[in-house]
């Protein structure tokens, strides 16, 4: 599981003076399900395209199994891609789409060091195509035209078309972006199942943090061409490295604080017990408090007191926005507090997560402008991302 397969060393990518990737150093292990997560324009797709061979880094090297592959064209890489809108061939039926890669003669270097073109026999192609259609549960769809398939079925064809070539790595570029909510959830399971069944590396690109947390073994959070954090989904959620990660993964209230001592953090001029340590005395820090870690109590019992400014029913809980000294927090609780009421809150020591100051400090975590509408506008899945040119990032 932990054999290193791909490594990017000091990879930098610039388009027209815009730096899309900055000194990226990362490796990908064999048989791992890894997700590149970040907002639009963070460089995640570019990284995928560099691995796929569609782009050559401006500087730095790409290694595959220890061999530098910067100049190896896509058709010679043991990597296949599932494209954003699947890029199925509309003029071919399902069977032919899947068989496409198998019908291209491949250059194979034999034991004697000679390279020759090898064409698969019709029987072999047929058995591999049918096998793969079974894996993606599309048996019986062989002669259907692409136009007659639903989005989810097209997605499966795209996966089958890529996997039938038995790549060592499957690249998935926002594979679920074009599907509706329910289908997306189903496909998450399905992808995970296929990955385990095939036993190969999946590198998935997404801006959907839920999807990333649900499917991945490893999540790579990126922003502005820089890797912010690499870790398991739990690490990323529970121990975000900076304000950006904390904000991007889940909901977070991020406030300025000062480490008064190990396990003592001060916010709003009040000291709280926490579990973090190892900071200098009186070091300014960012403090993350997840909305679900806050308990609402009566005003008198609270460690902090504030006024509820809005309440939204979310099914399991209420999204409650509370104003503390002009800073607005999001609190997720099953208790209903009407807007305008004064409340107090309590936070357990494990509810605080203290981070070092970073360039993202002060940018996130205040819910002053929070609204349903706002949330929706900023949902990247709803944006019709206009792809521009082959070279430009998203």
């Amino acid at each position, binding site marked *: 599981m932990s054999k290193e397969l791909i490594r990017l060393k000091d990879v930098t990518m610039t388009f027209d003076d815009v730096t899309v990737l900055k000194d990226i150093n990362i490796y990908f292990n064999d048989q791992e399900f890894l997700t590149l997560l970040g907002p639009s324009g963070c460089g995640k797709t570019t990284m995928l395209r560099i691995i796929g061979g569609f782009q050559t880094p401006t500087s730095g090297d790409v290694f595959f199994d220890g061999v530098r592959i910067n100049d190896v064209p896509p*058709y010679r890489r043991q990597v296949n891609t599932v*494209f954003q809108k699947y890029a199925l061939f509309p003029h071919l039926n399902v069977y032919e789409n899947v068989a496409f890669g198998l019908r*291209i003669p491949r250059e194979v270097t034999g034991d004697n060091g000679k390279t020759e073109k090898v064409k698969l026999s019709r029987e072999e192609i047929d058995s591999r195509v049918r096998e793969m259609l079974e894996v993606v549960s599309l048996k019986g769809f062989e002669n259907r035209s692409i136009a*007659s398939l639903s989005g989810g079925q097209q997605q499966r064809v795209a996966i089958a078309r890529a996997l039938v*070539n038995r790549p060592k790595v499957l690249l998935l570029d926002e594979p679920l972006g074009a599907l509706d909510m329910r289908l997306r959830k189903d496909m998450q399971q399905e992808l995970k199942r296929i990955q385990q069944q095939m036993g190969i590396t999946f590198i998935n690109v997404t801006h959907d943090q839920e999807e990333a947390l649900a499917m991945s073994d490893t999540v790579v959070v990126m922003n502005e061409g820089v890797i912010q954090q690499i870790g398991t989904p739990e690490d990323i959620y529970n121990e975000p490295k900076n304000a950006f990660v904390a904000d991007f993964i889940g909901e977070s209230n991020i406030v300025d604080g000062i480490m008064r001592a190990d396990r003592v953090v001060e916010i709003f001029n009040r000291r709280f017990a926490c579990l973090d340590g190892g900071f200098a005395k009186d070091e300014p820090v960012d403090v993350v408090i997840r909305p679900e870690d806050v308990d609402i109590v009566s005003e008198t019992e609270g460690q902090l007191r504030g006024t509820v400014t809005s309440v939204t029913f979310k099914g399991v809980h209420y999204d409650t926005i509370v104003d503390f000294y002009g800073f607005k927090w999001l609190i997720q609780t099953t208790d209903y507090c009407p807007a305008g009421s004064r409340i107090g809150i309590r936070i357990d020591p494990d509810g605080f997560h203290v981070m070092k100051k970073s360039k993202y400090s002060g940018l996130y975590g205040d819910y002053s402008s929070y609204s349903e509408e706002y949330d929706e506008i900023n949902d990247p899945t709803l944006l019709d991302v206009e792809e521009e*040119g082959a*070279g430009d990032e998203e």
Partner: protein
Amino acid sequence: MGKNRFGSRFLIGLCFLFLYLPILLLIFFSFNAGDSSAVWKGFSLHWYRELFHNRLVIESLATTLLVSLLATAIATAAGTFAAIGIYSLRKKWRDPVLVVNDLPMMNADIVTGVSLLLLFVAFFRGWGAIAAWLNSWQSLITFPTRLTLGLGTLLIAHVSFDIPYVILNVAPRLRQMDANLVEAAQDLGCTWIQAFFKVILPEIKPGIVSGALIAFTMSVDDFVISYFTAGSATQTLSMTIYGMTKKRVTPVVNAVSTLIFLAVLIILIINNIREARQAKLASKRASFEPVRENPRAERFRAWLSTPRGKLMRRAAAAVLCVVFVSTTVFLTAFTTSRPVVNVCSWGEYIDEDLIDEFEAKTGIRVNYQTTDSNETLYSLLSNGGADYDVVVPSDYMISQLIEEGMLEELDYSQIPNFEKIDSRFKNLPYDPENKYTVPYTWGTVGIIYNETMVDGEIDSWSALYDGEYAGQVLLINNSRDALGIALMYLGYSVNTTDEGQIREAYELIEDAARRGMFQGKVMDEVFQTMEGGNAAIATYYAGDYLSMLENNENLRFVVPKEGSNWFVDAMCVLKDAPNYDNAMKWINFIASTESNLRNMDYIWYASPNKEALEIYPAWYEEQYGEELDPEIYEIMAAPQEVLDRCEMYVCLPKATRKLYNDLWIKLGI
């Protein structure tokens, strides 16, 4: 509301009527048994039969098809790759390039035509030196030093104006194409070129096909650009039709236009059906909405991907290729294989059977072209783009051409029939030593009038200028004749160089014009107008009058008492004619008594062949079993006393020609 809707429907109906009525009329009258485009005389396919026996039409149709097919093939390939190239540019560049691509389509055809002509002529001039240098330098290949406009330049021109249409049709398909398709193919193991054939090509095929169809129709349709770039030896169908309408819109024109209209209509319908189907598919595809395919189509699709289906598909493609190649080869052979002679004459100025006979006898192909006046001919020649061998200008133009060194001396040893030319027509002032010319026809200019529209007989040019027939007079649309007639009426010489006299003549015309005497300025349109009884008086040539008389027996002709112009049209050969010896053969053939008799009978212009002129009445009687009306014979071959009243044009000095030209432009009726 209801009323409103009725109103708008009515307007739409009116619009369509306005658009299609002319075409419907044209189609209707193409089936007319009579030869009028106004009077229905019963249904007949006569004009279609005539059409397919008209060698000019068939030949130019072959040229048109050949050029269109080749141009379409080349432009489609070039345009497709260009579109792919443009598409792979960055957006910053792509859009401006597409705008640049649109420009030639918006550009006036005439500008495109003229600029291509200029380019070709400039290139040909430069090429002479390059070819000479290349030939002196090596002896492996001998490069021709003299290039002329022809099929090659026509093809280049068509390719160049077809390409933008292909790009225009292919580019949107590329834009619609998922940008990742090519990458997907590469990802699956294709090199770029494999991806092109396996993915891009099938994806943009509909665009390529409609681009090719539109390019083809554009090529078939084109007149203006072809007119400038085809040179003299080549003529497309639209150029032939244009030539035919110069004289009189015969129902043959209706028939050929009907066929063209139907052909283009069919191509457009096919294209539209295809595009509609594609658009439906594309919209479904974009919305990820499953398309219910009809089971027959699905079964067919499945069959196509079986080995058998694939074989059939390849076979069909191979058959198409073979058909295309063999059509091209056949058309090429048909249009270019034989030795040729290029002749430029006037419209309806020869019995076309003579051309066939000459070809059958000598194996030399005759490229027979027409133009409508000496002045047009002159500008064609001085442009340098024309490569005629034989031209048939009139007397005064001949002396101008000789003066400017544009004519080649004839080898009379190859023209024994020159002997038979009446000595009256030899050594005339325009060619005093008779080194350059063999006369073709001669005749007089006179007044043609409709006796039912005027009182009594007309015998003076005054009828053109007096108030009596205001709005009923057709002014001849050429400065030399119009001013010459006025000079004659005023009692001056038609060849005067006295500016005062010429201005006086001009004022006479201008004054008459101001008083509304003239219905319009016409050349060959005179046929239609006079035959249809739409004007009372015109001035034109005796021979043409006799042609009109066949269609309207109320017309009369007179050489007015003040005198008139008599003219000789003669065959000459241009300097550096590419087919000099063939030209000699042609001139000798036309100068024969037999040819002269036939021409005289067909075009009603008098022959300069002494024998032919003398025996014509007898020959006529033998042919038609009835006597030739001596009055007609006299109009055709004016007796000496009439000729004595007439004066021949001589070439005017340059300053006078400029004066003529300036005054004529100033008149601007």
